[in-house]
């Protein structure tokens, strides 16, 4: 226990990597996920089908399997990213499916009258989506997106299995050295809880400020 506490700085570094991974992965997922939603609500059938397929494929593959494929499969095809980049990309690609579903639910929460009104004043599909529907949709999505972010944070721990030295990776290293699984993993748990609690609190505040009163 005593030795483990000596390595708090080392663990904090891992927490930093976890945060970096999560933020990059989440940002990518939001951009790609929103794009997927636009595809799925668009009037063009092939785009809708493609969007649906993407979401179904990625939601039906375990993230770990996807990570292993990405890290060890792609180099055989001649493409090698660093382990950190690989994991950030995987998180973004994987959670884009979940973001897409959250955004779609948000769009469904916007009353149909809004879309009809936008059409009635002559807006195109793009204009009504960008100016009328998505701004209202995003305001109802704070909590669902916060949940996706928490998912990204917790899933980033899978990186330890493919050699990324994030919080769990460093915890396992300390455990290996001192054979003290309980204190090391307790510390790691505290790290994750700190991040997710902060996200939850922040999301609650944002939601209150942004809610559309109808």
């Amino acid at each position: 226990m005593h030795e483990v506490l000596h390595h708090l700085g080392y663990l904090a570094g891992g927490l930093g990597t976890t945060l970096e991974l999560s933020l990059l992965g989440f940002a990518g997922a939001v951009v790609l996920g929103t794009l997927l939603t636009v595809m799925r609500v668009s009037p063009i059938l092939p785009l809708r089908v493609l969007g649906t397929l993407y979401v179904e494929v990625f939601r039906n593959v375990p993230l770990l399997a996807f990570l292993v494929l990405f890290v060890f499969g792609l180099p055989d095809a001649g493409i090698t990213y660093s382990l950190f980049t690989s994991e950030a990309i995987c998180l973004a690609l994987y959670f884009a499916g979940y973001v897409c579903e959250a955004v779609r639910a948000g769009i469904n929460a916007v009353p149909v009258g809004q879309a009809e009104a936008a059409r009635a004043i002559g807006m195109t599909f793009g204009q009504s989506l960008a100016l009328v529907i998505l701004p209202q949709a995003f305001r109802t999505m704070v909590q669902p997106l916060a949940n996706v972010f928490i998912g990204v944070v917790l899933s980033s721990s899978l990186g330890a299995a493919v050699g990324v030295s994030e919080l769990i990776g460093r915890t396992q290293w300390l455990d290996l050295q001192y054979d003290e699984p309980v204190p090391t993993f307790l510390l790691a748990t505290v790290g994750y809880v700190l991040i997710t609690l902060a996200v939850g609190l922040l999301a609650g505040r944002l939601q209150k400020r942004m809610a559309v009163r109808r």
Partner: protein
Amino acid sequence: MIPQKNGNRSARGRERGIGAGGGGGAIGVGGGGRGRGRGGRRGMAAAGTALALAGALTACGGGGSSSLPSSPGGKSGAGKPSAYTQAQVVAAAPVAPASAITAGSWMAKVKKRGTLLVGGTDSSAMFSQRNPVSGQLEGFDAGLSQMLAKYITGKPATKLSLVTVDTRETMLQNGTVDTVFATYTITPQRAQKVAFAGPYYESGDAILVKAGNSTITKPADLNGKTVATEGNSTAALDLKKFAPKAKTLLFQEDGECVAAVKQGRADAYVLDQGILLGDVVSDPQLKVVGQPFTQEPYGIGLPKADPEAKAFVNAWLKTIYADGEWAKLWKATVGTKIAGSPPAPPTIGSADGS
């Protein structure tokens, strides 16, 4: 199975697995409901391929028959009178006298059940690997566990439960398995949780690199390099000691570490020499350099709650050391990949923790 082919197949599987998502998109453009149905199935196929790949990765470097690149004299055992198969060695193995099985002991429980519950692996070349054709477990660990089962029950009946470095101690402690044969390095920390008979084999950490690499020949050369090893293996700590400036990558499986070296993510891979030799046997792209730089005494894991088990298994080890059965088994398993005559068996109790 010819290992080279195995490698190709897993590479092709990988391409297919990645292609499945895109291909599904193209096919699905048929129509709403049907497209979705296909999409679901495609997703499952992709998941299946992914799992198959994960399996292929762990099974990398499967039991080949070619000789080691570094040992031209490869199969020196062939033709000599000592060339037994594993099955022959086990068939000739001794059975314990009835007086050795005291009532109510660990041995008596095993004898009553008629089967030895073994914790191990089925993907470790030379030590315990399932032959895909016969379904039999082949290797030094597998052969020893069969000999121990025969010693107790009169027939080589074992039942394998797969264990990992994380679960070995727990499965012994809670009685899921009677014993663990899994290239299990004896350490004082582990000995606090389980009892170790043996050591029955001496290995040590060695270095695996690409065949064309000539800059790494000893542990000190690893400083400043990226080195892969299995997380939770003792090698990760040894690396810290022998090459403190090396950048360590921890992967879960042997196959992943090998892939990391082949793909250039890591400059080298450090683990027990026996396991590394198993990896390079089937792969001309890789080689093992230098001699082992640590000592890894392998022990037979036994429950600490049954103290009589350790003395009993140690007595059995002494028997097969003395009558040459141990050496014959070495020749039939590890000896098919490493040239030369069998080493002298390690002294029982010589390892710290045994």
